[in-house]
């Protein structure tokens, strides 16, 4: 019996990862280039709108690609991703809740948005690798 899932999930997962990585790289590169362009050249309004729009389009494309690829995952892979997302969400929630105590105690400075971003990505990766190892 052939079920309705992708019959070559591992292969399609690799292809999906490549496309996702390319869109993510495009987002990062256009964002960096845009910041440099605006800071150095001080372009006119239409150019600035374009500079803002291009990374946004790449980011939206990346998001749609990511969500579309989730449909192709089988039930165990979905579970692994869900566990990784749960680890990341709970970890960030706890860190943000506890951070003010550390700040008042003088151990850390003001909370910066990119701290949260790094923590989120780190915990997502940790959760993914941990769940993947458990079901190996």
């Amino acid at each position, binding site marked *: *019996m052939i079920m309705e*899932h992708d019959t070559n999930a591992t292969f399609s997962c690799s292809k999906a990862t490549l496309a996702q990585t390319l869109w993510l790289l495009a987002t990062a590169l256009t964002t960096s280039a845009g910041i440099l362009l605006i800071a150095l050249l001080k372009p006119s309004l239409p150019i600035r709108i374009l500079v803002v729009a291009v990374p946004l389009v790449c980011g939206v494309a990346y998001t749609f690609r990511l969500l579309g690829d989730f449909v192709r995952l089988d039930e165990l892979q979905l579970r692994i991703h869900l566990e990784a997302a749960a680890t990341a969400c709970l970890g960030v929630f706890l860190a943000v809740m506890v951070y003010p105590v550390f700040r008042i105690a003088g151990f850390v400075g003001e909370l910066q948005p990119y701290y949260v971003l790094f923590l989120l990505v780190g915990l997502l990766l940790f959760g993914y690798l941990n769940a993947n190892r458990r079901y190996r």
Partner: protein
Amino acid sequence: MRNTLRVLRAENNWSQADLATRLGVSRQTVNAVETGKYDPSLPLAFGIAKLFSRRIEEIFLPDGQADAR
């Protein structure tokens, strides 16, 4: 939950990858089910049962139950 998936697969001379292809899941899923690390969903359990022409309870057994095979 225990299962007899490895035995059934061996009877058919299928590798984990063969079985995964027939079921439309990844090889990691087949391995996790076989080793008891992951209990499959009901649709996947029905798919496995249909593939081997068995009833679900002939393949999947509760932990305390003696092996039916």
